[in-house]
């Protein structure tokens, strides 16, 4: 950006610097807004805590998450085992701590895959229109015509159970809403005057898309991805619960609720604790995404 501006001084440099200062002002006001929205800030805090816990799990956990200790099975919460122990005598607190790694792994992997794919499909579809749009949107519609979880289940059934396949299956079903969003944004941008101006200057489609369209719709896509993270967490946990996602003895939260189910009525902590962890994390992503949307997309309120 600055490199180009210095190459072509004058008329073009002016709006660029104005744009960047406007950007700064926007980020500043966004920050202020954010601090004024305690729930969103709380969500962000919990997410940061999750990352911290995942990164330093070996130091935060008090026990090994996998090693069994049958003599100490099904003990209620105590000073030694803060959240109690499960049917194999493993410390539930430590398993939840290590489970944060699994959750973070799934969420980040799916998001990294889904974001670019959804963005690419949506932007290409919206920018070129016509037959390209018709074909791409037809494909998107098919994926959207079945509820997400059911389609994910079908993919997992085809691929076989397991953490890696669960990630693939979730990614396969999570991109269409992103593509829809990116397409809608692109179609609004496409007819803007500045795109016509760039087109008249002879810019290639690739250049227009990457330099002028994508930067404009990336914010909404990021908001949507953040909100999607909550759904991803719930889907992954649901798959784990059904026995189709992560497999025991992986300390995945959904798997933990599933194995604890048998002992639930007499030993409440087995199911309660990992479920609370899922709820807390997915609620935080929703709060954070909600706050982000309020800031970045003033059209909503």
């Amino acid at each position: 950006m600055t490199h180009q501006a210095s190459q072509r001084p004058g008329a073009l440099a002016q709006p660029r610097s104005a744009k960047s200062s406007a950007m700064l002002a926007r980020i500043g006001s966004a920050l202020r807004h954010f601090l004024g929205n305690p729930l969103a800030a709380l969500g962000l805090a919990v997410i940061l805590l999750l990352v911290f816990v995942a990164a330093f799990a070996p130091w935060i956990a008090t026990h090994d998450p996998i090693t069994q200790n049958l003599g100490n099975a099904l003990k209620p919460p105590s000073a030694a085992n803060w959240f109690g122990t499960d049917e194999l005598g493993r410390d539930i607190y430590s398993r939840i701590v290590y489970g944060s790694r699994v959750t973070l792994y799934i969420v980040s992997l799916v998001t990294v895959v889904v974001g670019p794919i959804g963005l690419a499909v949506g932007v290409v579809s919206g920018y070129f229109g016509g037959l390209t749009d018709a074909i791409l949107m037809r494909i998107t519609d098919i994926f959207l015509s079945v509820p997400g979880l059911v389609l994910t289940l079908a993919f997992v059934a085809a691929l076989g159970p397991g953490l890696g396949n669960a990630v693939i299956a979730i990614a396969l079903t999570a991109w269409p809403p992103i593509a829809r969003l990116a397409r809608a944004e692109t179609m609004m941008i496409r007819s803007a005057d500045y795109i016509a101006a760039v087109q008249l200057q002879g810019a290639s489609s690739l250049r227009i898309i990457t330099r002028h369209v994508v930067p404009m719709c990336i914010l909404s896509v990021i908001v949507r991805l953040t909100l999607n993270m909550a759904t991803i967490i719930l889907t992954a946990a649901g798959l784990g619960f059904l026995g189709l996602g992560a497999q025991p003895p992986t300390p995945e939260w959904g798997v933990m609720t599933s194995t604890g189910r048998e002992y639930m009525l007499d030993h409440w902590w087995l199911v309660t604790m990992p479920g609370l962890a899922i709820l807390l994390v997915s609620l935080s992503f929703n709060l954070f995404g909600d706050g982000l949307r309020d800031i970045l997309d003033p059209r909503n309120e």
Partner: protein
Amino acid sequence: MTEATKPLRAGTGTMRPGPSPIPIVYLKLWQATKFVGGIALTILCLMALTFFIGRVMPSDPALHIVGQDADQETYRMVYERLGLDQPIIVQFWRYLTQLAHGDFGVALLTGRPVIDDIARVFPATVELATLSIIFGAGIGIPLGVVAAVNKGKWIDHLVRLVSLTGHSIPIFWLGMMGLLVFYGMLGWLGGPGEVDVFYNDMVERRTGMLLIDSLIAGEMDVFWNAVSHIVLPASVLGYSSMAYISRMTRSFMLAQLNQEYAVTARVKGLSESKVIWRHVFRNIRVQLVTIVALTYGSLLEGAVLVEKVFAWPGFGQYLTNNLLFGDMNAIMLCVTLVGIIFIGLNILSDALYRVFDPRTRT
């Protein structure tokens, strides 16, 4: 709508301005064809999708049928009978023609035609989903209205939190917590299953919905027992739909509350509750109906998990059982069926919109 306005609207709404006006009948026919064609294409593509998902499956359906101990000859025969030696396009055509003839394959788990199995389990899910949506809409809509009217006050924040929690809570965990508290600790409600084991098979299944069947049979004991069993799963499932419905109601209301007609009604001196319920709420009914119809479809998704938790003998449990068993016939038909229901509800909500909102008619 009068006849005079019709041609104008149809002409401007859907066609580019052309040199010669096309007779309305053809236009309508063309629209109808496009509409039906679009749906047919989507369903066809959906079947293609499920078919190809079924074919990437690593397990071998022929091996499933003949078993591990079969000799080479038998295996090859079954392999060819299933058409697995044919090109994939031919296989897909075969799959389509079978579907068109109503042959949906046999479920490996039960040995019965898949379609019979599904017909048997589906009513239980419909029963559950219907109660859930009644719960979800019955509580969600008033909550949304209250939140919108008190925008920014504590009650709005409370509704927002309740709704966000509904979006964030793992539904299977909520179900287990409900069982733990209301069945395990308090003993107020029935546990998993449709009725207590004692009442199993006591009434003749006519509709497949136990509440209705027991009423028809006049078995009030069974009925009340069934009620105590369905309350918990229905509220758990309904909570997620309530979260969505209340949120949408709030935003629909907010969009209307500042419109001029609402101000006019207030200026006229109507009481606030009359303004809200007689004027504003009337205008969002159409949007609400469509939202509720769409939510009903998404309940099928939650039903998969809820039915697993509550051992509910419905569609979701049938699907998960087959998932664990790896029966692609059953899974793919389930997915296709859910897709068709979903598409159908979409069309229905579109149609409702058209029926109730004259502005959208062409």
